[in-house]
């Protein structure tokens, strides 16, 4: 992936942005077709912030996010097949069908989830940065959170720990103006969220999250300071969520159609396409990128449709580490109905 210095090759990034948009449109269709369940949070409108920050990461940096994570997983290179299969709850999903939309991950790519409790991922990402620091590795953690998460106690404790211990971590606040139906102004006494970094003598910057190149530049700079000087930072990316909070929310109770339309005018996909043209990309190249993205989504859906469900006799798989089954052997007598078959016989500790 590019370092800060290198010139940005926009075309592949544009393709990834389109991939995310098309992927989530397909996910919504499949949700309506009842092939995807649970909560499903789309990020349409946030693609530049997503792709730009991940582009600024090194291959060995670590990524931790909240539950609105389809885009981050795809941008980090998790195969669309594995992501769609996870949304379908299938065996070959990136979490083997056990996590779903909110709990994507791919440890082989340094992506450690995909977390559903607002703010809960912050202390964990901070601990990962602590581990990198203990091993004196020149790597950093990028931890994504939403504008609503900055009011959780976990934000405060994590930022203070990261700063007092000088940990290599960048807290990426994706400010899409709302936490469910609550605007930033109604939730945060300091609505300029990046300024809250000051409470920890930490650097805080704000960027137009829909400006791909600007995002890459500032994210790259902050990540490099984290890697090189162990300087943690807050990066606030201003963007907008086109859709509702989740596919279950029409997203109109707390904002006007006009407001949404206005933001759609400035769709980051269009802005990036314009940038490509300025850079001399041909219509053919652009169409080819868009077609490639569309095909990738098609392949992902086909894969997910064909992928089998997780084995029913493995209900307890993964819960405990291999070898744990013997620790639980003596717990069986008098257990509640079903435990024998479902848990003790369900792959416990395998």
């Amino acid at each position: 992936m590019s370092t800060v210095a290198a010139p940005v090759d926009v075309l592949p990034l544009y393709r990834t942005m389109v991939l995310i948009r098309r992927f989530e449109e397909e996910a919504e269709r499949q949700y309506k077709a009842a092939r995807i369940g649970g909560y499903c949070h789309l990020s349409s409108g946030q693609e530049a912030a997503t792709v730009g920050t991940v582009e600024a990461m090194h291959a060995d940096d670590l990524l931790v996010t909240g539950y609105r994570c389809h885009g981050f997983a795809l941008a980090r290179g998790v195969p669309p097949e594995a992501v769609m299969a996870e949304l379908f709850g299938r065996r070959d999903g990136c979490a083997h069908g056990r996590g779903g939309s909110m709990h994507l991950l791919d440890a082989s790519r340094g992506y450690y989830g995909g977390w559903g409790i607002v703010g809960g991922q912050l202390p964990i990402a901070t601990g990962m940065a602590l581990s990198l620091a203990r091993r004196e590795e020149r790597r950093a953690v990028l931890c994504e959170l939403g504008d609503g998460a900055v009011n959780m106690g976990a934000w405060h404790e994590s930022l203070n720990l990261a700063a007092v211990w000088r940990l290599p971590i960048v807290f990426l606040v994706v400010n899409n103006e709302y936490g469910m139906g609550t605007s930033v102004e109604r939730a945060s006494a300091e609505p300029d969220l990046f300024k809250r970094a000051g409470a920890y003598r930490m650097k805080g910057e704000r960027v137009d999250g829909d400006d791909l190149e600007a995002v890459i530049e500032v994210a790259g700079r902050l990540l490099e300071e984290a890697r090189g000087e162990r300087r943690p930072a807050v990066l606030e990316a201003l963007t907008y969520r086109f859709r509702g909070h989740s596919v279950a929310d029409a997203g109109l109770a707390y904002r006007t159609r006009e407001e949404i339309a206005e933001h759609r005018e400035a769709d980051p996909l269009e802005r990036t396409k314009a940038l490509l043209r300025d850079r001399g990309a041909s219509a053919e190249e652009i169409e080819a990128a868009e077609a490639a993205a569309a095909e990738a989504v098609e392949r992902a859906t086909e894969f997910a449709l064909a992928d089998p469900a997780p084995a029913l006799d493995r209900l307890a798989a993964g819960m405990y580490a291999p070898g744990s089954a013997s620790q639980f052997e003596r717990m069986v007598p008098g257990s509640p109905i079903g435990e024998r078959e479902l848990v003790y016989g369900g792959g416990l500790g395998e």
Partner: protein
Amino acid sequence: MKEDGEPHVAEPAAAGVETMTYREALRLAMRQEMERDERVFVMGEEVGLFDGSYKVTAGLLDEFGPDRVRDTPISEEGFVGAGVGAAMLGERPIVEIMTLNFLLVAMDQVVNHAAKIGAMFGGEVRCPMVIRTPNGAGNQLTAQHSQSFDGWFAGTPGLKVVAPATPDDAKGLLKAAVRDEDPVLVIENLPIYKEKGEVRLDPELTTPIGLAAVAREGADLTVVSHSFATVRALRVAEKLAAERGVSVEVVDLRSLRPLDVETVAASVAKTNRVLCVEEGWPTYGVTAELAARIQHACFDDLDAPVERLGMAEVPLPYAKELELAAMPTEERIEAAVLRTLALAG
């Protein structure tokens, strides 16, 4: 038949009866209590402008305004504690937690603060607050969003915990909680919100805290449950009566602290066989306490060990098939009832 278990409840009044969902019954209770008492106000994430993430508070903002239907930032520890402080000054806050899972971040305010106030300060101050929140699973919400910690709160001296199973009790118990002088946790349930039932509209009717109900009379076996597990149990009971002539009595706990062991024991003394069912994990759960109480109170009445059924003891997986296999579905309850009867010879 519901009346059997609740002698203290006044008769349906002039106000009459109406069929509505559990969700609407909760809303009716809040509206009635807010009209009755200026000190009552609702506070939580998305309770106002968004009409509640599960729409329980829908319309209340327009009716009572932003001071009494207060949207909060995402800060459960902060606003649960704010409810505690307001209650100590005599307010009657109803704090909504979007789901029980999120109460974990506010655990310290509930267990180490709200529950301690009365005793720790020698009875000099009280904490008359209500916390409302749904537990439960079943919509593929996965491991972090599908839990029921009912027993943890029911095991905390200083708290009172109720978990209604019918719309009428949802209204009656929420109103009783609001009027109670102590902190009361009202455990609701996600799938139960859409359940319908007859609700007695009388604004003065409440369901007494600490009183279980015999939701269905039967002779062969007793199922003890609360919240959505009671809804499931009643369906199974009807099915078994129709298909196999098995007569199942269903005791709906309604309150978990205080726990009405008397009603449970009386039923078991009659049927001699009992299955305890809960939506959450049974080991170290609500059904553990039930089994402990029943084996003691009914030692000579039991023809078979007390059986328990709940959610399989794994963090709930996302895949629909796996989730279904783990839940205490009607199919699993039915099988458990038959097994308990079989065990009895």
